[in-house]
Structure formats: C-alpha cells, structure tokens
C-alpha cells in the first residue's frame, strides 16, 4: 500500500489528531505538554474556576516563574506590587489545581523555554504549547511547538487538546559551513530578513540542510525560537543523534526499554524523501556574515559589514514607510556603517540566547579582554541551573572580571517587565529576539545580535564581530 509522503510537521499532526474537523471546522489535536508562566495564565485559571472545571492532565503541565521575576535579590519579596501579585497568583493557582511549579530560588526556575529542554521533558515528536510566542523554541527537538493566547491556555488546561486549522509547510534549507564568528543567531536573522516578519504566516517552518544538521541543540533552539519573528507559529528541526545525545540521561528522558522504544519512534520523525513543501527558501551558510538589526522589527536586519539602508532604495511603500519610522525611532542615518554604531548596553540573555553554550561562547571572547568604559553589560542566565553550571565552569568570574553584571535567571531585559529596562534613548546590543519600539524600555533602541557579536561589541563599544578584535 502506497502512502502519501509526508513532511515532519504533517506526521506530527497525524500522530496527534483526536478529531478530524469537518465543514471548515478545525482539527482537534492532543497536547503532550503544556508549559505555564505567570503572565498569560491567571485569567485562564480564573476561567476554570468560573466554569467549575479542573486541569485535565496535571501530569502534562508544568509552571515556572520567569517574565516578571527580578534578577537581583531574589531572596527578598518582589518589590513591584503588581509583579508580586502576579507571581503569587501563579503559586496559588498551581497549588489549588495541583500543577508542578518551579519558583524563584529553585534550581529549575528560569525561562520556560530553557527549563523544558534542560529537564528532558521536551522530547521529539511531541505537541507542546505555552502562552508565549517563543514556544517555537521546542521545535528544535522535532516537536510541534507553538505559542497560544490565554483563552487557549484555558482550553488546554480544561481539555488537553487544541482546535487548530492545518498549517502549510515551508522548508528553510541552509546548506554549507558557517565561518568562525558566525552562529545560529545569524542564520535566523538572515532568514527573517529574507522572508520578512510576515513571510511565515500560516506556515510551520522546517529548518533543514547541512548547516542545521551540524548545529548543537542550543543552536537549533536559537533558530526555532525566532520562527515567530518570521510570522510562523512553529519551526522545527528533525531529530537526529545530536538530539538523542542531548536528551539521554536528563531527568525526564525515557530509560531502558522505554528509551529504545522512544528512539525507534523518534527516528521515524523525518520528512519523507518525496514529500512536498508548500514553499522553500534557500540560505547559503558558506557566505553568511554576522547579522544585526538596524530597525524596529526583526526583519530589518543586515550583515554587520553593511551600512544602515536607505529607505529610498525600498520599493514596497509599506516597507519604505516602516523603514523611515524605524530610522527616526532608532536615531540612525542611512549609509552609516553598522560597525560605527555606538551602543550603551549589552544584554546577554533571553530564551533565544541564554543557554550554557551561549554563555560559554561569549565568555570565550571576553576572557582576558577589557570592556569599553562606557558599556554596561548584563548577563542573565536562562535558568537557575544554567547559572549554577556557569559558576561551576568559572564563567561567572570571567563576566564579573570583565565588568559585567552577573544576574539571576529570567526573561529580564528581553521585554523589561521586571526592573531590567533600558532608559529612553539608550541603545543596546541584545541577544534577545525583538527590537520592537519600546520593547526593552520606553524609547529604548535595540539591535539584535548573536552572543559573540554581543561580546565583541562590549569590548569595542560599537557593533562588532569577534574578527574585529585584536588578536
């Protein structure tokens, strides 16, 4: 019997289909893991209480505190009363409904998208949701992982399913070998610049090709993380030996015969050879430069070797208007070399780039170097466990000797819900995912960069790559 060849995303859809939608109704998909945090869940728990409903699968649900939490003095009560109330609401709700939570001070507390993988609870072939658009991160394991709104959070809590309209599929083929100083972050910034912030709308992206295959799990997570910045709700990488190696021995990874059964299934999670994607994009990894953004959306990026673009060169009227607005907001002049842009603050953190490998790669660049005097650098590990591991490896000492602030784990300055914010007009090189107006603080100006570009920038004081540093 011949079967229609399927893409990885289509296989995952098939394997989680509870009810096929008819007459335009969405399909009902089973959800294997629901991650929760304090910002997008209180109204969902309220909804359950109002309707007299319970959490259907407590054992497929896990919570952590991350968006609002302070990154200093975490032993003290949270100063801001509204943040404190929101975190307290999460603690109360998880207690009332019997959901596992990792609170401030716990070694598994941290950014929800760092915690899932580090516990080994993010595995290939799963459907994973969270009330956070960067849930796409977990697609790095070959999962269908997506951000949802609060109504959907309530829906998953109550039913462990989600009604979804089928997506189209897009292959992002990245072939070749990255040059030194070029990393996963540069790949995804280049992808978004190519297909724009709306290019992925309605699609699940599958990152493929030799450059993706040779990336670590951390690098794959960085790429999948920013799928949403291209408008795609999910991005994924087919699992392979690198995936299995990462998972083996983690707390929630299967063991013994279960491991063998799991791996046997995981190995089937590949796009079939003859499967057809609805769209394909090609990126040449061999010739990729470090990528940075100049504007106020993640698609407004260029090679670090280029200059600030001239809006007059943009033909699309909407994009041109957006570029003009962005340049005004960013206080940049067309033609300025990106490397001449002086920054005030370097932020190394976020669910995009705050895993141990990110910290290691930045530490390697700054070790023995001197920070530019005017630069403020803040390092915020993605989880408390990442922080502890970094301290075990002595990375904290390297950052502190350099003059950087070594913080506790959380989302921090990526979105500035806690006190970690930029001042109006302050310019940052940030390893986070969004350079939107006001994202990191009212009037703040953000350039998205990779961890090694962040490190080199902290040394030189202007946007820089490691190759700009004196040997």
């Amino acid at each position, binding site marked *: 019997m011949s079967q229609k060849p399927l893409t990885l995303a289509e296989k995952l859809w098939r394997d989680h289909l*509870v009810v096929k939608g008819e007459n335009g109704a969405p399909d009902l998909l089973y959800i294997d893991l629901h991650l929760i945090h304090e910002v997008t869940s209180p109204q969902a728990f*309220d909804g359950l209480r109002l309707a007299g409903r319970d959490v259907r699968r407590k054992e497929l649900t896990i919570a952590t505190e991350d968006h609002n939490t302070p990154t200093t003095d975490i032993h003290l009560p949270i100063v801001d009363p509204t943040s404190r109330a929101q975190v307290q609401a999460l603690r109360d709700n998880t207690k009332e409904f019997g959901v596992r939570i990792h609170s401030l001070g716990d070694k598994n507390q941290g950014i929800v998208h760092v915690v899932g993988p580090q516990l*080994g609870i993010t595995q290939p072939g799963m459907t994973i949701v969270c009330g956070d658009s960067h849930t796409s991160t977990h697609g790095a394991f070959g999962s269908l992982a997506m*951000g949802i*709104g609060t109504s959907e959070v309530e829906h998953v809590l109550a*039913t462990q399913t989600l009604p979804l309209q089928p997506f189209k599929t897009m292959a992002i083929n990245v072939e070749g070998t990255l040059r030194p100083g070029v990393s996963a972050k540069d790949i995804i910034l280049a992808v978004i610049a190519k297909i724009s912030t709306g290019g992925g709308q309605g699609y699940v992206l599958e990152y493929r090709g030799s450059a993706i295959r040779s990336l670590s799990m951390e690098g794959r997570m960085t790429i999948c993380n920013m799928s949403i910045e291209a408008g795609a709700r999910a991005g994924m990488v087919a699992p392979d030996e690198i995936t299995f190696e990462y998972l083996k021995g983690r707390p929630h*990874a299967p063991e013994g015969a279960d491991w063998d059964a799991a791996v046997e299934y995981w190995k089937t999670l590949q796009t079939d050879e003859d499967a057809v994607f609805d769209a394909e994009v090609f990126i040449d990894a061999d010739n990729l430069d470090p990528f940075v953004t100049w504007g106020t*959306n993640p698609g407004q990026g260029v090679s670090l070797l280029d200059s600030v673009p001239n809006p007059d060169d943009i033909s699309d009227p909407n994009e041109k208007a957006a570029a003009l607005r962005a340049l005004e907001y960013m206080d940049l002049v067309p033609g300025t070399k990106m490397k001449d842009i002086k920054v005030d603050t370097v932020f190394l953190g976020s669910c995009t780039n705050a895993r141990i490998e990110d910290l290691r790669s930045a530490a390697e660049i700054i070790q023995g170097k001197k920070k530019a005097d005017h630069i403020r650098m803040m390092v915020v590990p993605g989880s408390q466990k990442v922080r502890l591991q970094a301290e075990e490896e002595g990375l904290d000492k390297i950052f502190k000797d350099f003059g950087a602030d070594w913080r506790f784990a959380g989302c921090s300055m990526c979105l500035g819900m806690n006190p970690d914010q930029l001042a109006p007009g302050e310019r940052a090189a940030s390893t986070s995912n969004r350079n*939107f107006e006001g*994202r990191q603080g009212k009037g703040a100006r953000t350039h998205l960069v990779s961890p090694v570009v962040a490190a080199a920038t902290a040394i030189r004081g202007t946007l820089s790559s490691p190759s700009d540093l004196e040997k």
Partner: protein
Amino acid sequence: MEKISVFSGLIAPLKRSNVDTDQIIPAVYLKRITKTGFEDGLFANWRQDPEFVLNQPQFQGAQILVAGPDFGTGSSREHAVWALRDFGFKAVFSSKFADIFRGNSGKQGLIAGVISEADTEAIWAAIDAEPGLNATVDLPSQKILVGELEVSFEIDEYTKWRLTEGLDDIGITLQNEAAIAEFEANRASWKPKTLPAKGV
C-alpha cells in the same frame, strides 16, 4: 460570548504596517490578573503623542479600526485583544494578521477581518475625505459599508460561525470527550510526564 451580526460604529484609520502586540499593549500593562480594564494600555506609547490618530477628537469612541499589513505580530499576549476590546473596538481590519492575534481575536468576540491592500487604501481615503464617518460591519455577509464604499472581508467560516452563534470553544471541544479519552488510552507509556517530578 455575545452573538455578533451587523453593527455600525465610528471607523478609524491606523496607517502603519507591522503593528506588533508590544505596540498594541506594552509589557508593563500585562501584570494584571483580571481580564478587563486594559483600555489604558492600548497603544500606550503612541497615545502619548497628541497627534496620534486615536487622540484626534473626530475618532473618539471609534469601534472599527482599519490598519496596515501585518497587524498583531510578535508576542502571543491576548491582552492585545482585551485592550482593543476594552477600548471599545469590535472589529479590526488589515490585509494581513499574525496567526496568534487572529486566533485570540476569534476567542474574544473581536472581528479580525482580512481586506485587500487596495481596499485598505480606499477606506483610508474615504475616512480622510470625511473624518468621523460611521461604518457598518455585516459579519454574516462579510461586508463593510463605509459611506458609498462597500468592501468584502475574509474571515474563516468556523470563526464566523462561532462569533455569530456566540459559542464557547471549550464547550464545543468537550462534546468530543470520548474521543479525547480514547486517544489518551492509546498514548505510548514512555511519553514524558511532569509528575512525579524528577530532577528536583
């Protein structure tokens, strides 16, 4: 949820593309644990500019918003929809919506209707010619009437049905309780569970 059919209201233009949810409501407004009262956060940074469209006297009380392409990109925050709703908007039109925003709108009774870029421009021109214009949104026939102008909009059939019937998603899904239970009975036993907690 209230049933939606045909309604009229003041229509306002938002002549910007890529209006991300951080602009619709900045993160500092997301700390509330209630589901209402988010109107003060709507476009909070832009509203500090007296020239901003929603600060203009002729657009006070607007219920229909017509924005540029790629509306609602970025963060999944449903607060963006709550803020629009609490401010008084019942419908937003754009040539392109971010997927999560569009989904969130449908759950909260806010119409997110897709119109062509040409129609967006035409509506903007009509409003420019007569600011303070009222428009009629007809959900069953998927039409917007702005003065002499009649524009069709797209909305997926299922969302339209739910909005016109005022139906709650969870209630619909729970009609499939037996199918969910059967699916659960057949899940592989090695699939990960968060409880009992390991690695703590």
